[in-house]
């Protein structure tokens, strides 16, 4: 599983971070950091998928492996 962020669009509102803080982290410059490796944990992965569909700017894309 890999996350692609559209940097042009992401405005750092932190919705994704609110749902899966283990994977998404918006810093105080409103820049979004995404974890390189997302653990296999199914509960976490379900939340990561929810983050992707919850981004109100639709700035996240998910590539499943």
């Amino acid at each position, binding site marked *: 599983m890999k996350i692609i962020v559209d940097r042009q669009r992401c405005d750092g509102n932190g919705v994704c971070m609110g749902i899966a803080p283990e994977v998404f982290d918006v810093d*105080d410059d409103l820049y979004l950091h995404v974890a390189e490796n997302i653990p296999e944990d199914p509960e976490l992965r379900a939340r990561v998928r*929810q983050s992707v569909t919850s981004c*109100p700017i639709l700035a996240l894309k998910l590539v499943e492996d």
Partner: protein
Amino acid sequence: MGGMRQRIVVAGGSLAGHSAVTELVGLVPEAEIVWVTGEQHRTYSKPALSKEFMQARNELSELMLPDIGGDLSNLRIVRRSCASLDTANRTVTLDDGEKIAFDQLLIATGAQARMPGMLRGVGGVFPLRTLDDAVAIRESLAGRPKVLVVGGGLIGCELAASMRTLGLEVTLVERLDTLLDRPFGGAFGSYFLDLHRANGVDLVMDAMVERVSLNDGRVAAVELADGAKIETQLVVVGAGSEPCTQWLEGSGLIVADGVVCDSYLATSMPGIFAAGDVARWTNPIYDLQMRVEHWTNASAQGRAAARNLAASATGRQELRKPFADVPYFWSDQYGQKIQMVGWHQGHDRVELDRSADAPGPLARFYRDGRMIAAAGVNVPRIVMRLRRQIEEEARAQEAA
């Protein structure tokens, strides 16, 4: 209904409906899912309507949520409105009279903009709730009108910010003497006043629009309760919203400013659930009934209600779970990232944090010594950490 295929009806085609249907398609492939929505568009992102889209920073196609994935052979989409609900015969009647029978129903009809009587049906006056509203407002910006914003809530303030960002002349009329009073529990009082003034909005506080003057059927000016007259060619209204529950009148379902649900998002009738802006549920985090009108709530609640509905449809009890959540929303005005977590109503103390070198103010709300909410500007990390803290403290208290 032995042996017959079950039918699940989802009413409402915005975010809560979309996330419920996405979940149901995978969870109960053996059932037929009928998704009824009054919208003629695919599901789109509403938060962008007052922000990026209003500022012409993105286009229509960029607002659309992803298609429902997976095998869709059991899904039927009906683009019409629900007119009434018959809980005895378990049918939904559509606006053209067609009746759809259901075994389970998920209500996600959201909310609609409130429009003060004297502003209804006037040319050049627009609410903002739907994509069509936003397109209509954007089209009327072409003549670079002088804009009047009615209401200093989230929608009004975001519209004022977007219009100023576009360089238009903006006047905002608000009944109270503060902006964003309800969403932020009054904590940031002068911060928002200063922010909008610094960006050139003409703020008219403690004021009410009393009537409109027309020219050729279009608004030319509004008159305030104190007699003052403000010329304008475009009025945008952010006067709050109300849940879309008219179609449930007479159904016997308990409705009280929203469809009343337990902590499982189950309504007062078996097999009928609700989610999103329309639902008033008991949030175990606070042990309080609340109706939350924010994006992430609609998304998470749609999923949660779908799972509880699937549990009732299939008997798979492992899917059943209460919906316990610390509400969250953000707003974007002039590039300032404003965030709020939790539920501040009933707070008895606010702690304000405003060090000179901080990127923005931060507030913590307490009730009986327990932190129940927090809000901040440009401090997303801190606010999100506080969200976790509120949740963990609530769970610890529940366990104790």
